[in-house]
């Protein structure tokens, strides 16, 4: 289990109980009768984690998603893939460290991995702007994705960004244009694309590498049109309303599965991904393996048509006063998760 130094306020009871168990364990070396109590407390600990983590409110989810010890792209590159060969640079301006791209192996699959990198140490965080990519990052991602298609490699995108970088250089180099072009090209890229929001899915900066055949989220990740702080600042005129904003925006995996914005939710280890990197990586690997197997078998035309229709059907509106069938709603979308695609069943 990962050594945790950063404790979120609602995790406090978990840490307190863990400390108690640790003390008792030392004691039980001399006092065997304490062992029963340790066993009892361990069961309580599991229940406590379950209870706390099944009832996270949206703001607490944001806190988990931003946990400094949560696994990030470089951790998954290490733990999920057998090899990673980084490819740098957008061949136009530079090599944005906020987006890592390169070849990787997963079982027998050769894939192109694109992932936001937030950085762990302060030095690394500064060098990759805390995961906020500049236009050269999106250009690099696009170039590598096109190359992947050329050499018949599926693309895997790991999304983890508070948002695309808001700065003078970013605007000068066309932040809006690159994000638009990314979605435009990804929507018709002739190779399978699998996207997973691993922690933070911050608006356009996330969607810039988020158009795929499968779009999934880790259980405690969030994906939002705007940060809760930003939304609170605009609509409530104060950042102190971030908790209300987080709730109103429906940004959790549960909400987004219901709204059919994501296809799948990948369960996290008890107490969050930050408590067990290996288990989380393993579940992610299984998801990739299954998705790759399904998608690779589909003819490209069929794949692109399904990708188009998936995004085409998003949105809820009234037409002539009623909600048309194709307009996504709660009932329709629940089935879309964990389904066996009809195509796969036929082949």
């Amino acid at each position, binding site marked *: 289990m990962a050594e945790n130094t950063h404790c979120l306020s609602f995790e406090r009871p978990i840490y307190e109980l863990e400390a108690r168990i640790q003390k008792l364990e030392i004691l039980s070396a001399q006092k065997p009768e304490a062992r029963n109590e340790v066993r009892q407390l361990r069961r309580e600990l599991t229940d406590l984690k379950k209870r706390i983590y099944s009832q996270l409110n949206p703001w607490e989810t944001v806190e988990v998603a931003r946990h400094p010890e949560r696994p990030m792209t470089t951790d998954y590159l290490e733990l999920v893939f057998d090899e990673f060969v980084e490819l740098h640079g957008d061949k136009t301006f530079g090599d944005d460290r906020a987006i890592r791209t390169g070849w990787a192996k997963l079982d027998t699959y050769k894939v192109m991995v694109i992932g936001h990198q937030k950085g762990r140490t302060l030095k690394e965080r500064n060098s990759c702007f805390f995961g906020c990519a500049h236009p050269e990052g999106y250009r690099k991602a696009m170039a590598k994705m096109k190359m992947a298609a050329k050499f018949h490699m599926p693309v895997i995108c790991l999304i983890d960004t508070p948002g*695309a*970088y*808001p*700065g*003078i250089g*970013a*605007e*000068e*180099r*066309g*932040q*809006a*244009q690159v*994000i*638009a*072009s990314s*979605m*435009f*090209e990804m*929507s*018709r890229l002739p190779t399978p694309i699998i996207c997973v929001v691993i922690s933070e899915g911050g*608006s*356009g900066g996330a*969607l810039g590498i*988020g*158009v795929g055949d499968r779009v999934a989220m880790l259980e405690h990740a969030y*994906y*939002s*049109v*705007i940060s809760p702080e*930003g*939304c609170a600042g*605009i*609509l*409530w005129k104060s950042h102190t309303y971030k908790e*209300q*904003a987080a709730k*109103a*925006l*429906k*940004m959790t995996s549960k909400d*987004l599965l219901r*709204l059919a*914005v994501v296809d799948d939710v990948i369960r996290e280890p008890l107490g969050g991904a930050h408590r067990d990197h290996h288990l989380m990586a393993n579940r992610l690997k299984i998801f990739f393996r299954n998705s790759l197997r399904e998608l690779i078998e589909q003819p490209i035309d069929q794949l692109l048509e399904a*990708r*188009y229709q998936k*995004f*085409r059907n*998003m*949105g*809820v*509106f*009234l*037409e*002539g*006063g009623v*909600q048309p069938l194709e*307009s*996504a*709603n709660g009932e329709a979308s629940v089935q879309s998760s964990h389904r066996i695609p009809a195509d796969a069943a036929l082949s």
Partner: protein
Amino acid sequence: MTHNLPDANSWKNVMNRPKRGVPEGLWMRCPGCEATIFRKEAEKRLGVCPECDYHWYVSARKRIQQLFDEGTFEEWDADLEPTDPLEFVDKAPYSQKLKDEQKRTGLKDAALSGTGMIRARRVAFSVTDSAFIMGSMGSVVGEKLTRCIERATQQHLPLIIVSGSGGGARMHEGMLSLMQMAKVSAALARFDTAGGLFISVLTNPTMGGVAASFASLGDVIFAEPKALIGFAGPRTIKATIRIELPKGFQTSEFLLEHGFVDRIVHRCDLQSEIACTIDYCGK
């Protein structure tokens, strides 16, 4: 920079601009040069200041009037209406906000689309109106635009989208709004693959998720003079980097200088420039 007056297009000015176009009354003050302008004079010039060429906001309906040959415009999907899928409540419920905005603007949502003739050339057309919840894109805007693009693809029509949006993706519809960016961009990719011509016209302001999707995907991109155009809002950038933003930052002229706009087009020339582009592309 052609930017002779300090805050002609500052964010504050964008927020304070008259929501319903050229203000009522016989005379009015131009926010660009502060001159007192005879109202009829400005209207004759399609809402452009005769002194300094400041481009006033024009509503979606007015834009259609200005661009299309008289009586040729036929609206599409007029019966699409927004709803409140998230049951979003900030200081007031979104459902109430929608009703208020509909009453205030006479629009059902922030976009209109349809087909008609521009100087005798048939086009598919959409326009977003920055007066309706900042011209932000929710499900209705995304759906209207997508249908418009799909019809342009089927009917082999040149596509014109005039964007005005200070809001980008509409927060009140959460991720469903963000996904409209992908949806519209995907429709444009198909239109592009089919060989269609897309002329994107950027007006004041074109920001956020609108700038970062269809507005930036034109084969040809026009911008009205001195419009505010960009991804992140100036206030967000200022709060992040904590230095003063350069003069003329995120204006049409700034985008032209950095290579993201093909031409800056005066509103009075928009019709003829569109016609010219269609002819060059043989559409």
